[in-house]
């Protein structure tokens, strides 16, 4: 399972990795803080017939350069890229942010928890849900 984690805060990206590790699920997490670069990378993957395309994108909102909200829009407007499920993982619990993301077709929205226990639970749920429960569109690595 390939996950693209777009996050500028190292502490936060490490936490997610730690969470995955502690529940013992194998997942390849690619972290990037540059949304622009990530997008172009994703497009390149397409040219390579979807090789290295992530199965899931975990996206923070408050990013330098290109904002997470902007990336979400771009992703979901892109005819091919929009097939990749996007889970927003943000500190913001503001209603307007949540609304915005769902309006722009994010697949789900999670507020970053404070304590680690919560992180572990979220990570477990995320992996179980997206990789054990739901069916993903073809072209993903999960056959």
């Amino acid at each position, binding site marked *: 399972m390939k996950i693209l984690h777009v996050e500028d805060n190292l*502490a*936060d990206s490490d*936490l997610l990795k730690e969470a995955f590790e502690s529940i013992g699920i194998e997942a390849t997490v690619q972290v990037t803080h540059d949304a622009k670069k990530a997008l172009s990378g994703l497009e390149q993957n397409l040219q390579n017939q979807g090789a290295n395309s992530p199965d899931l994108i975990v996206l923070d909102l408050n990013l330098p350069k290109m904002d997470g909200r902007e990336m979400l829009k771009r992703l979901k407007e892109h005819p091919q890229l929009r097939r990749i499920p996007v889970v927003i993982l943000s500190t*913001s619990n503001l209603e307007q942010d949540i609304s915005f993301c769902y309006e722009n077709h994010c697949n789900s929205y999670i507020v970053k928890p404070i304590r680690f226990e919560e992180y572990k639970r979220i990570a477990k749920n995320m992996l179980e849900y997206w990789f054990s429960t739901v069916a993903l569109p073809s072209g993903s690595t999960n056959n």
Partner: protein
Amino acid sequence: MRDSTSSTHPVENSVSELRRGLLDAAVTTGWLKKLKAKALFVAGKEDLFQTISQVFVDAIFSTDVRMPRDCAVVLCELPEGLLFESEPCLKAITSLNSEVCKHICTVSDLGVDPEVLLDRATNLMTLTCMRIKGNPPSQDLESGARDALNRIQWLLQKSLGTTDGDSRAPQPYGDLAELNDSKIIFEAVGDSLLREILDDGLNLLETSAAIFESNGDYALSIKASKWCRFMDERSRQLAPGDNREAIESGKWHCNQSCRETSLMAVESGLPVDQACNGGIRIFAVPIKAGNDIVGSINIGYGDPPKEKEALEALALKYETTVEELSNQAQKYHSRPPFIIEQSKKRLLSAAYLIGEIVERRRSKMEIQKLNLMLNERIRELEPAERERLKLADIVEQSNDAIFSIDLESRVMSWNSGAEKIYGYSPEEIVGQSIFMITKEEGPTQETEEIRTMVMAGTPPKMFETVHKRKDGVEIPVALTISCIRNEQDRITEISVISRDITEKRKSEEALKKFSRDLERSNNELKQFAFAAAHDLQEPLRAMANYSDLLTGRYAAMLDERAVKYINRIAESSERMQALIQDLLHYSRVDTHGKPFAEVDLQEVFLSATKNLRIAIEESGAVVVADKLPKIQADRSQMLLLFQNLIGNAIKYRRQETPQISVHSKLENGMLTLDFKDNGIGMEEEHFERIFVIFQRLHTRDEYPGTGMGLAICKRIVDRHDGAIWVESKPAVGSDFFVRLPTVQKATGDSSANENSAR
């Protein structure tokens, strides 16, 4: 009837001598035979004349004196002191016994021709001129002449006031004037004056007189002479029924002819003179008041008939006897024509007089009626006038400028408010152009547009502009313009109410500035909140999480105390984050407040309990509510309010099962909610403190929480223009009251200028 052989008059001794002397003279000299003169005048002063004439009459007619065929005996009374004589007369007279002459002639005048003298004498006569012509003195002639003289003899006896018996007494059949329906003359002139007027005529003629209204009703009727009374009463008896029926039957002859003659006069408008049923004549004169004939006045005249045929016809008609009629007729004293003519003339004057009185009375009544109408009108106008004065007072005392202009833009009226605002006194500005007070001092496009609208009858609603005071200072004003119309509904004036809105403008500006400041402040707060939401919380989260990772990963290397300390760090960060969250909620109540809309509080209650279901389940709380109404509010804030209050009720419970209820009361547009619980309650000294930010009554170990919940509730309630307060008893329970208006005055849109200034 006087007997020629006796004298009832007082005769002086000298006169009786004279008489004897005259007789002797007449017989012995046979002077009358010799008389060549055509006329024999006996003239003298009044008293002497009376005596002489009697004597002469006696002398002439008592013996076998023969009068010459064509000799006229003229007895005339001349104006005192003046005697006429002529040569031949004098000669004739002086041929008589000189004794007689001495008594007869005194003053001589200038010698007048006997013919002329005769002529003059007849004009001045008050006695009938007896002319004995062509017939030898015979018994008939004698008695005829005597009769004629006797007939007028009574005049010498008559004086005013004596009446023929009881002629003024009312008739046995009653007063016909009672039947008067018209009463125009009767009321205008009055009974006593009418009687006086009729009396004039009756005194002279002693017959009957009547005054009729134009419809034939009697205003007054008097039967004075015995003849008239007899005939009238007799014919009344011939007619049946009461007076009215008798009149209409046509059998009441006397009444009939009186009325008929009068009505003829009324209809023709001219005097009528004709015979009446009763054998005499009636003279009727119409009474004119202005242009109308309102009635007539009539009087009977003439002698009752003496001829046999006439009497017989009359007796038949009146169903009586000739003897009776003859008897009555005898009682009537004949009147000389002169008197009759004079009476008729008097009647004409009387008719004129009565007409005048009626006319004047009419005019007076007209004037009275007009007066009444005028007073009525004045009374009507009084309240209208008072109203007008009241309005004028209001205008004058108003602080607003109230003035009017004519169609040439000249000032017509200017109240004291206008003087206060613009500085011009009425003397300075009335009659001048209104453009003295406008900024441009002349017509502009705006004023022309306004003028067009006004003249079309649709003046503009209140609008604001800038005027200029006398001292040159420009002032903002709000004008209300209306049209004044005249009786023909044409617009003749334009009235203006002008209000100085300088203060209002100042307030508006201040308010705008305040709004701008508030908006700026809100924006800054929003930015702060945004920053707080993200940047402040990140480090806190890292602290908590990595503390957890630390105790997780390195559990083996850490002792209990170390773990405890590290947990404390994590918990502090957690709490800090919660605090920041609450502060954000608190600030967002106003900065992120949504516009007010209709909110169903019933639904809000259900959502709140759903959100709290875990806490409700864990505590076993029973949460109920009355039927809650819909109000104008911010739904998410109402939800937060309900959650906080119900959540608190669950949190601060006692051992007993928490019984939580929400009660609702709607009154005068205000909703009062009571969040009732049976929890731990609190002392009265804390009732106000708990709503202050960060105020807690318990330790965090006892009850979790940041101390923000109620402060946020208060902020929410304040934003909705309501109130929140508590009543409580320790160990019994608490009632948290929330009062909210059902309708909001502002829109609650915090992005617009229209912010509730708090």
